[in-house]
């Protein structure tokens, strides 16, 4: 297991290096000039050159990448002060150290993810199992139809709708906002309730469908039939055999989904005005804040890679047929 983790971690570092290089090159190669945005209403060529120089944009892309990359490990000095390692650079648009911004934004995304994950795992997997258990019966049909409808909803439709119904028209729930749980747990909960409901509605539907189909597949496997033939109770077969078998698929998808959600739910955060990593990414895009975009992208990529390793390791625990060689 240890050897597996070390090997996969080293591989992940290589992947992240490649991702960071590609991301950096990609964003800095596109034909736009971040310096122009900082140049004010009357932008003289002299002023523009001065800004380009102060932003380091007059260096080659390779040198820019090297300064940025080495800063992650050694820190970096800017005219506004020192950026401690791990330094993901400095946003000239926001005039902030990127690491500080990422750390400030991550708790919002973490809270949003945590609440919705709890809801969609409980309800999604639960409903999927129920539907598989009652395969072909009314409960299955209702669950399947409801999940089909919910999974075809989009956040940008469900979000404003939920806001209108629960907040604007009725004033039943609070206007979405992130208050740190350490500051006020009740305000934290009530401020995130509407985003949790909307985000988990769509994800619950997906997990219901996925769980149902995995369970149905497992229930038709030979080993399940053998277990039944040997006289095991339906409950044992369902929970000890079929569910465990279905878990592999669910955990695989969940690992990637969790990494993706923690990397920032762009639309959800934008619709509800939450200042998480997703909203940061989209704002950075519109502001042409390339340094910030590279930072957010790298964090999101890291989360996906890390959760992939965790998922791979979790296989061995879930399914004894899999050995980590």
């Amino acid at each position, binding site marked *: 297991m240890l050897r597996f983790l070390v090997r996969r971690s080293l591989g992940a570092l290589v992947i992240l290096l490649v991702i960071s290089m590609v991301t950096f090159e990609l964003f800095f190669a596109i034909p736009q000039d971040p310096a122009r945005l*900082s*140049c004010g209403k*009357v932008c003289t060529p002299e002023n523009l050159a*001065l800004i380009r120089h102060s932003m380091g944009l007059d260096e080659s892309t390779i040198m820019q990448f090297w300064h940025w990359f080495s800063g992650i490990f050694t820190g970096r000095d800017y005219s506004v002060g020192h950026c401690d390692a791990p330094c993901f650079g400095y946003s000239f648009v926001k*005039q902030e150290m990127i690491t500080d911004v990422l750390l*400030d934004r991550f708790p919002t995304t973490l809270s949003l993810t945590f609440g919705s994950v709890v809801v969609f795992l409980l309800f999604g997997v639960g409903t999927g199992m129920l539907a598989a258990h009652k395969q072909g019966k009314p409960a299955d049909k209702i669950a399947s139809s409801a999940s089909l409808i919910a999974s075809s909803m989009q956040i940008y439709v469900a979000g*404003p709708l939920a806001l209108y119904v629960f907040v604007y028209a009725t004033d039943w729930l609070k*206007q979405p906002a992130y208050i740190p749980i350490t500051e006020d747990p009740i305000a934290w909960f009530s401020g995130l309730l509407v985003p949790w409901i909307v985000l988990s509605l769509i994800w619950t539907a997906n997990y219901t469908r996925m769980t149902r189909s995995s369970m149905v597949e497992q229930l038709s496997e030979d080993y399940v039939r053998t277990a039944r033939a040997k006289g095991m109770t339906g409950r044992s077969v369902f929970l000890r055999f079929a569910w465990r078998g279905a878990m592999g698929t669910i955990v695989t998808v969940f690992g990637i989904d969790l990494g993706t959600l923690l990397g920032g739910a762009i639309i959800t955060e934008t619709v509800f005005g939450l200042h998480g990593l997703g909203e940061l990414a989209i704002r950075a895009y519109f502001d042409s804040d390339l340094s910030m975009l590279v930072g957010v992208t790298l964090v999101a990529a890291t989360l996906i890679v890390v959760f992939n390793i965790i998922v791979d390791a979790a296989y061995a625990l879930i399914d004894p047929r899999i050995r980590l060689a």
Partner: protein
Amino acid sequence: MNVRKSRQLAAAVMVVGALTVTTACSSGNSNSGTKPEASKSKVAATAITVGTAADSVGPAIAEPGAKKGGTVTMIDRDDFSHLDPAQVYLNYNSEASLLFTRQLTGYKLQADGTSKLVGDLATDTGTTADGGKTWKFTLKDGVKWQDGTPITSADVKYSVERTFAPFIKSGPTYLQQWLTATDYRAAYPGPYEGKELDAIQTPDAKTVVFAFQDVHPDANFTVAMTGYGVVPKAQDTKEAYDKKPFSSGPYQIAEHVTDKSLDLVRNPNWDPATDPIRNAYPDKWHMEFGVQSQQSTERFIADNGADKTTFSFHNQVHPTFIDKVKNDAALKPRTLEGLTPYVDYYYMNNTRLKDQKVREALLRAFPHQQTRQLQGGTSYGDYATNYMSPTVLGYEANDMYDILKKPEGDPEAAKKLLAEAGATGQTIVYAYNNTPTQQKVTEAIRVGLEKAGFKFVPKPLDAKTYYDAIGLTNNEYDLYWGGWGADWPTGYTSLQPVWDGRAIADGASNYAHTNDEAINKMMDDAVKIADPIAQGKAWAAIDKELQKKAYSIPDVYQRSLSLYGSGLGGVKFDSLFGLQYPLNIYVK
């Protein structure tokens, strides 16, 4: 350069101090966009006057029924890009800075809704004995920083000196160039290397004298810009100052989290008796960012909980709610509508379109009615006939090309002009922002121009690099959209940066590449006229000359339509910045 909204226009611009000028024009249309301009236009007046020393004495004119206390919330899409006065240029940043930054002069809102230039930190709007080459300002007694130390003439001098520093990149550059040279950075590096700028003298702690290289009779307007607000040397943290400036106004910054929130509390050392401009009714201001205009509109309409005491500097009514807002009597009392200082143009590239008759044909053919309708109809703005906005001193309405009579375009007249020029079938390469709305607008322009006998070639540009592309002096387009708003309401900043031929450069604001020696000369003469009325007339003459030569297509004077919560009183529209005005707001 954004903002919008509806109805009619007509402006009266006056200057007082014994002087008065007015002009008016009207336009307007139903939202259906089907009827030509009619005589039913309502007249809304904007006025700028220059006040006396008596007008410059505090406190500000009280808002009827206003009371002190409470917290006012402000919601907007974006955080303020700059708070360091020297970096502030955008109207949105300036409007917020009114709460914590003071300048030598500023605009006092009158009870009748007009504005008056008065002394803010200074006892009056300054004096000049040589036609505007040397300006002297005297500071009031009792003006203090948030830590209680007095604001002195040395602070004013230092504040202007630091605008020369290399890290100041986005503020205005007028004073710097007037005090030294066009390449002001080469002339003076800023105060951080220990050098002072001799062109600013401080004979005593209360007096500051600016000695310009040339005459600038409206420099008292220039120093009203937030960009020339005061910064204390002892608190100057250079680049970091942009995040948390030291207050000279009624509020000070308690906390600022970039892109998330800004909280203001009272500055105990601000004395209302020194301030003729600012009322300070709320105890606190809480500002939240990241709220899109659709969300803010819905929140204002719902008017629940804390949103009752919420307003927005910049977020407009979302286009999908315009009809509802305009037709809902219950919303009317908390709806603000007004004319902004911004003018939309379709710039003609004069490097390529050299024949005046061809340019006139374009002006005649242009389908203003259709393009405006696609962008929000009357709510987007009023048809523009002039290059100068009606909010600018000296504005004189003209309709040389019958835009108000035929806003849908006059293809027959255009055809005739093209034939006279021997240019029937002339190709027009039109560059546009490749957004869904602009795609539709482009189609409307194509139909309009093709009817008049032009060959239309559309060139979509990436929205993020749009201004870079049209800003190249050798760009290969004939026609492209752009907007402009005056930095202060005189003709100088309304016309000179955009239409002075000597300002042509890559990335500069003369997007039309207009270089008319006669007009350049008229501009040189106009800036030297000390009398504001005469100067206003001179700029109006330049405006007329630009129209006569058909250098571009003025399209609309932008309007603004916005809402606020029912628990607030004193929310007004600031026609100088085209935003909601905070200084009379109170919690009911």
